[in-house]
């Protein structure tokens, strides 16, 4: 049934994208400070974005973007550009560019400006994809630790 599905694509979840984004932000900060950093985290994030944004298909059509990922990517675009995207193509090009930049950071030293821009991008991805519960849920106002909808949902 699984055919030859790419390993990353098979296990990919929004949580995974968000988690990789934060790890990548940390690695970029280490790189910026001249510390030893783990390039594989960046390569993994680039791969995760490739399969979720449809970049791997090269078609530039929404049909190839992972269902349910359009809106988070759109919000990341907005916060990065402070402007509305005019078409799907704007978002797609933005993602393709970001993937190329992450790939570059994973393979060689990049300039400080681009690095700072990538850290912003990664933090936005983390915010969008790791949907955090409101803080008050952590301090005793939560009704239950696991939603009853776990089965019904």
């Amino acid at each position: 049934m699984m055919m030859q599905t790419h390993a990353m694509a098979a296990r990919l979840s929004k949580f995974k994208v968000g988690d990789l984004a934060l790890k990548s932000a940390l690695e970029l900060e280490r790189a910026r400070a001249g510390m030893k950093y783990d390039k594989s985290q960046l390569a993994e994030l680039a791969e995760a974005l490739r399969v979720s944004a449809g970049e791997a298909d090269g078609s530039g059509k929404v049909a190839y973007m992972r269902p349910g990922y359009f809106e988070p990517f759109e919000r990341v675009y907005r916060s990065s550009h402070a402007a509305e995207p005019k078409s799907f193509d704007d978002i797609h090009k933005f993602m393709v560019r970001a993937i190329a930049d992450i790939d570059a950071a994973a393979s060689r030293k990049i300039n400080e400006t681009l690095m700072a821009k990538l850290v912003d991008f990664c933090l936005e991805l983390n915010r969008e994809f790791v949907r955090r519960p409101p803080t008050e849920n952590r301090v005793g106002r939560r009704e239950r630790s696991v939603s009853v909808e776990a089965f019904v949902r």
Partner: protein
Amino acid sequence: MAASSFPHDDGRAALAAIRKHCKDLQADLDLPVGVRTDVVDHLCLNLLDKVDKFTAILGFILRSTNVRNPFELHYIVKKLVSRALDGDVSLLISSEWTYVPFTYPMSVDQLPDAILIGTPAPESGNPLLIPLAGHEVGHSAWRMYGCSPLYARMANQAVKEEIDRNKEAGKALLEAAPLKALDKDRVINQCAGHVMEQLEEIFCDLFGLYLFGYGFIAAFDYLLGPGGHVRGLDYPSDDQRMAILVEAAGDKVEGALDLRLDAAMAAHWTVAAPSLADKAGAEIVDAVTRSMVPQVRTDLFARLQSLGINPPQQHVIDNVLQAFERGEPYPERVELGEIVSAGWHRLRALDLAPCRGADEEEKRGNRSKSYKVLADLVLKTIEVAEYHDRIAGHA
């Protein structure tokens, strides 16, 4: 906790996985001087999330050692789950104070190799609810089988076609957003996202059905019937779920399991209508989901078959049922799905049979005694199956 005693190694394995995860997180704290404060904030939020989630999981691991838990189920359920997921997993079962069986959803991301099944404490004496865990394990299978990338493109395309085909609903859906090219793309991707969410839930139901057969449908009917929960787009309606199960269990469609069902099984399920705002979206999403169900069912059943797993066989269920009717556990090695299916057939027959007793109180007492006897028969048969399995050298 690691120093305390565990009834089996799975608790310790889950603790070891959490410890390793925490060590990895500790490495994240090796931050350079002058690191951006917003990066630190995100890291802190992330660590708080992990502490929050792992605390709940640690509590579950501890409660799984409680002697009230059905340890008899552990071996046979783990065996089945490991075969279905085609890998070694840790299985922890605990009774919990929620009324529906569940697995910790976060454990899929945090502890992918551990399955944590919580069963309702008020039903702790009822082994017939274990089939519902099949649905929850299905969520792990959905990831392990790589279903998302397999169906994602189909979903996007099918939504686009359905919007073009169902002009009225398509128009209503698009009118809800300003008509720009981007909005149409957004709506298509959103709807396809809901289709994928619905398909995952249906996949999980079918996964439980394949492993537990009639036992799954009966447990589903018992705990969730008559349905009618508030309807969102991300979830198939209850009556729709039941209809899909009945179809896959029957003999009307190709590849169905050909199991004996109660004639009126799905008849009392109520229909929950979506809100007015979701009406057009539900029409599109439900239609696309419905059109993809046969493919999902065929793929899933073929996958499980390729792993050497067969669905419960009706003639075996009948043999086990006859033993239960005689008040005996079944002496041969049978599959868990066959045991619980026979258990549910027996339970339903007991429900319909008149109960002896001089007055209502005595009748109630006798009925409750008959349920307890049945639960014991089911558990004993499970232990017999485990015995045969271990003796056969499969352990």
